[in-house]
């Protein structure tokens, strides 16, 4: 059984038909990338999985359980965490308060302390700035904070929306290294990216979205060789 199974979801913004039957499966332990241009429906797919949007038809199964009966705030306890688009850190909360919010649903003090140590080991920069207000961090540090905050819920599935957005190339490399590291420690990852090059490099499998539909799906290696993908998303003629 797949960890996440998205079955033919149709999501609307008012009358705008944003997702026209998206089906995605993510197996345990995988990194799966959704790539595509602006307005392809990548973020909408993630927001539907995370419960912020409700699909008009179709369903999302997580570990075999239909998620439609839950609201967004129930999903963290189920094991789904999200690194939102544009990082979405709480700008007026301190770094450590932001991380604390990631573990909001948990009451196991020892476990939380353990995970906090793990996050600080992964991102030493965050430990240095733990009392600083998150709004004063640089873009890269905010991305680390958003990732660390998601890790604080000890998720089995991590949804990541455009982690490379607006970051310098060096930082993008570092962020993707960390994504691989988190995955190796046992967290399954569903990644949405415009940076198809990086996304396909770390992923096991990928899906290509265009105007609300999946036009291609294959292993990441095959997608990197695909002429359509090369032309449209990798900039190779």
């Amino acid at each position: 059984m797949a960890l996440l199974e998205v079955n033919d979801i149709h999501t609307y913004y008012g009358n705008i038909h944003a997702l026209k039957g998206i089906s995605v499966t993510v197996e345990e332990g995988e990194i799966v990338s959704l790539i595509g241009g602006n307005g392809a429906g990548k973020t909408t797919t993630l927001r539907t999985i995370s419960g912020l949007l409700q699909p008009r038809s179709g369903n999302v199964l997580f570990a075999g359980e239909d998620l439609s009966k839950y609201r967004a705030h129930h999903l963290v306890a189920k094991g789904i965490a999200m690194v939102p688009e544009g990082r979405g850190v709480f700008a007026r909360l301190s770094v450590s308060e932001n991380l604390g919010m990631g573990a909001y649903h948990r009451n196991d003090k020892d476990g939380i302390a353990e995970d906090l140590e793990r996050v600080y080991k992964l991102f030493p920069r965050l430990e240095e700035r733990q009392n600083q207000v998150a709004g004063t961090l640089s873009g890269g540090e905010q991305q680390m904070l958003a990732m660390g905050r998601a890790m604080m819920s000890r998720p089995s599935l991590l949804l990541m929306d455009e982690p490379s957005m607006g970051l310098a190339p060096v930082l993008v490399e570092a962020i993707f290294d960390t994504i691989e590291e988190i995955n190796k420690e046992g967290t399954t990852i569903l990644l949405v990216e415009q940076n198809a090059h990086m996304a396909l490099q770390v992923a096991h499998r990928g899906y290509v979205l265009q105007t609300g539909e999946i036009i291609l799906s294959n292993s990441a290696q095959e997608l990197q060789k695909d002429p359509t993908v090369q032309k449209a998303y990798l900039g190779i003629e």
Partner: protein
Amino acid sequence: MAQRFKDIDYIGLFLWLFRAAIIVIVVWGTVAKLFLGQGNAYTTKDWINFLVAGLSQGSIFALIALGYTLVYGVLFMINFAHGEFFMAGTMTATIFVALPLSASGFLDKHPVIGMLAILVVAMVVSVSVALLTERVAYRPLRRAPRLVPLITAIGASFFWQYFFAGLFGSGLIPFPELAVLRGAWMIGGVEFLKTRAVVMIASVIMLIGLYIFIMRTKTGTAIRAVAEDKDIAALMGIDVDRTISITFATGAAMAGVAGILYGLVFRQVNFIMGFVPGIKAFTAAVLGGIGSIPGAAIGGFFLGVFEAIGPPLFLEGLGIPGSHQLKDVIAFTMLVLVLIFRPQGIIGERLAEKKA
């Protein structure tokens, strides 16, 4: 030349003249009072008394102002029914607890236990009324345009006023006097009326408690997270609806305490008692910077002191006969001035920079 004449910004010019006129009036009144000996002669002791009275009144404003600021912080909505949360708890606790306890003599024998009982009942009723109002009148409209909940809030305000007028009658109901709070303490040759001192101490304790709750506890941090971004807060597993209810409840509990303190000072309550303090506290919240918790506290004290010292200081010197009647004029003139010249309040952020 003609071109240049057109460039004069008439609104800007008017605002500058307005500002200058206010300063002239204040300075002239103050000079006339202090150096030309217009009006009553006050000693230093009198001035200290005005200050203490102002701080004590201001502490009540501060407690009510917190309710406005907390709700504004999470919903960007001015909850105009907040004054009624203040009234509901106070009236109920006065009629069902304070008066019976006073009549049986219990309140004078065990003033601390008695007062605690009154406070608890006032808080419980205020919180219940707030939760009910939020659930029935505000939550269904959360995604409506911002004007809609504002109108509902005004409707809810009238609803509760006349609901309580119907329940308990529209006359003034006396709030019992506590024997232990009669008289004054003398500290360094200055008289402190016991009631005022107790009101001020109680308010400051509540303010500090609230600040710790918001800044140091997990629930308080969740309230701040929801205030910043409801979607992201939900992704963290925070139940946004529940957190908003807690925010309303916290503000209403403060209002319940403020109402009893108000009763101790003014010794009478009625169904309309929430209106003026509510508007004044809203002024205080805007004055301090709406959405900011320290701002609400500072705004409250500032307004209280200004109201107490303003009339004798600026107005008596101008030869205005009933200058104390004009303290409300001072309060609302300040509101207008703040909105014109410093819309973000004393320590608040600019409203325009906050996302609505």
